[in-house]
């Protein structure tokens, strides 16, 4: 079927809207798979899955703070020992985040162009607050990631932490984390960020199943519940660390919570 025929044959062609055309939105990729609305949503969904995996792995790593400095410092040491490979991982992660954000921004811009005028009476119609705040939560999470990298990876706010060494001569990540979260403002921002991340995930997880075409009317409520539960677990896991620091459960020097683990 020819697209010219389509347009010519429109009876109301004199009235027809001027299609804004979407194919130009992604000028770098010529494949419709990557420039179409659904193609880019697939990219957002797949990068989303990878980021959820990262967030979960990162959480497991962070939780090693509970058994004590030995565990978390060893974990950090192990990561650092990857050397150039660590940079490969970091670059891949950056690319994933970049794709996730680029596609989202493109889609968002198109959506704005598609809706020139809002209704006088706004009616949210079934949409959840989580779904409506995806862009906001995403933006805050990005801002937080930059802050978080600056604080704990680059250690730019308090460079002295770079020199902290534990008994085995490893970088004392344990002490750095506790020092960082002892600042209630840092902890508050952290809690806010992981809270928004959880909101982002609670829509994102069920949404990605829909985008990848795995949902049915029966499965959708299931995926929605699963999304909320996973988001909650991730939130509790992350939030527990600054809370434990502020409540004095985690402190430096380390006081073991469990006598059998050192």
């Amino acid at each position: 079927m020819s697209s010219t025929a389509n347009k010519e044959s429109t009876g109301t062609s004199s009235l027809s809207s001027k299609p804004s055309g979407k194919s130009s939105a992604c000028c770098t990729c010529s494949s419709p798979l990557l420039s179409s609305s659904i193609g880019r949503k697939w990219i957002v969904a797949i990068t989303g899955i990878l980021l959820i995996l990262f967030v979960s792995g990162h959480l497991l790593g962070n939780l090693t703070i509970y058994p004590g400095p030995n565990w978390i410092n060893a974990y950090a040491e192990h990561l650092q020992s990857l050397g150039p490979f660590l940079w490969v991982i970091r670059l891949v992660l950056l690319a994933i985040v970049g794709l996730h954000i680029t596609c989202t921004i493109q889609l968002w811009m198109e959506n704005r162009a598609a809706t020139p005028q809002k209704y006088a009476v706004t009616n949210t119609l079934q949409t959840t607050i989580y779904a409506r705040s995806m862009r906001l939560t995403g933006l805050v999470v990005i801002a937080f990631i930059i802050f978080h990298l600056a604080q704990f990876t680059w250690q730019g706010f308090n460079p002295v932490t770079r020199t902290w060494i534990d008994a085995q001569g490893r970088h004392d990540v344990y002490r750095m984390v506790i020092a960082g979260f002892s600042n209630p403002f840092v902890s508050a921002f952290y809690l806010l960020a992981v809270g928004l991340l959880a909101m982002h995930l609670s829509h994102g997880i069920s949404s990605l199943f829909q985008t990848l075409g795995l949902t049915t009317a029966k499965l959708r409520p299931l995926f929605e519940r699963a999304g909320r539960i996973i988001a909650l677990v991730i939130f509790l896991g992350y939030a527990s660390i600054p809370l434990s620091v502020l409540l004095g459960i985690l402190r430096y020097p380390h006081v073991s919570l469990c006598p059998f683990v050192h």
Partner: protein
Amino acid sequence: MILDAKIPAGPLEQKWTNFKNNAKLINPANKRKFNVIVVGSGLAGASAAATLAELGYQVDCFCFQDSARRAHSIAAQGGINAAKNYQNDGDSVWRLFYDTIKGGDFRAREANVYRLAEVSRNIIDECVSQGVPFAREYGGELTNRSFGGAQVSRTFYARGQTGQQLLLGAYSALSAQIGLGRVQMHEHTEMLDLVLVNGHAKGIVARNLITGEIKSHAADTVLLCTGGYGNVFYLSTNARGCNVTATWRAYKRGAAFANPCYTQIHPTCIPVAGDYQSKLTLMSESLRNDGRVWVPKKKGDNREPQDIPEEERDYYLERKYPSYGNLAPRDISSRSAKEACDSGRGVGPGGLGVYLDFSAAIQRLGRNTIEERYGNLFEMYENITGESAYERPMRIYPAIHYTMGGLWVDYNLMSNIPGLHVLGEANFSDHGANRLGASALMQGLADGYFVIPNTLGEYLSTQFGGPKITTDLPEFKKTEEEVRERVNKLLSVKGTVPVDTFHRELGLILWDKCGMARTEAGLKEAIAEIKALRERFWKEVCVPGVGAELNQSLERAGRVADFLEFGELMCLDALTREESCGGHFRVEHQTPDGEALRHDDTFASVFAWLYKGEGNEPELEREPLSYEAVHLATRSYK
């Protein structure tokens, strides 16, 4: 003028085959040179436009709606008949043919009806292959249900939305052809006149409803698929936009209008609630399987239905038709409801309603069963009336539903104007004086998919070598000018009365005097009243705005102006047909127990009316109906 039905020779069963074997063919290269105008995009129009385009003709299709898919065929609920005999219950082409002829009270053409029954089978094949999701059995086979007027199960259906699904099938075929550039679709464009060149239909003048532009369109032949005229009654089950304009304009250009008085009244509709009402909603006839129809025995009994004791209720259908009871056919149930209300025993606002009571069924079967069977209908009823039919009886009343009359056509679906073909409800051909349930969809699709593609060649093959028809011809300019004048005339009345007011008044006159029961005196009064109303219309109507814009008042004014002329012809036809048959009941012609009384010796014919100019009485032509295969019998449902 002699109306030649051009019925092929041979025995009834062989006529269509004989016709096809000898039909004039147009070779593919020549088909491309022919331009066909299809007006209307319902089942008949969409299927014809798609099929003719597929064959290679250049097609222009017009609809006044914003999409071809919105034509009123979409609202048909029940189903579509086909002589498939998948149920092994003894159905056959012959039986479908006979049921249709008998249902039409022996006032339809045998050959047309037989052909309809024959192609009914192909329609189902066609629709299934288009992806129409007909109801299925668990084993994957198509399922059927039974319908009024038949003793076999031959009705195919897609939930309560069969019309919608069949139209979407035809519309998808049409969309494919538009996408391929073979059909030019003109939405929001209303035909306002037919253009004749040397006495042949060669184009139309249409108004773009968005811009108001009035423009001519030329073609080698014109197909009118513009539906019925039920809206002449103002209140009907038809869509708001349904109108008689296309066929009426064709009539005024010389096309014969056949049997305009044959209108079908559906017994189970939600009654009129007030003068604000814009349409009547049909409640599926299936409700009568479990509901009992009654009115109070006492006149003007204003008690709540539950307070009226059993012995003071008149279950009039069960009383009058003990063997069929509440399942008596449409025309009989409708008339009985009217009688009950006329005797002052009607219920609800204005006393125009009867009860359809489910309390016995709920007691017998339980509320759950009733809810399973009719839940969606009860919900719809409650949404419209605000009453729950579980707690109190439904109120129902008959309403205009379908019109069997239409432009006269021969076996080839061509009217007496050469080149003007008429399909679907717009023609008069297949249903006689009464249509059976689930047969309208069958006829629309038969005409479009299977009849016209075979018969169109009979006319077009005579049209080789003539000068190319273009809209530059003076005939087009003249007609265009007449249309403009008419539009301007409507705009320049500048009265104070809205169009709807006239339409409602016309509807009331017709409903009272040319509705379920008609009398000579009433019809004569109606004709006088319509004339007076028409005069008032042209003096007092208010059509605000201008012509060159989206102007819905203007659209309606044009349609109502035509209804005001058409209504008179309908009454004249009803007055002239001095017998009762099917949907046409003349009070003077009934059996001692109040049933319709036909006069086959004088009236077994089609009444075709020819326009003879403004102010002149139209001329009546009769096409005799000869029955070779069936024996004329009296219907009885006692």
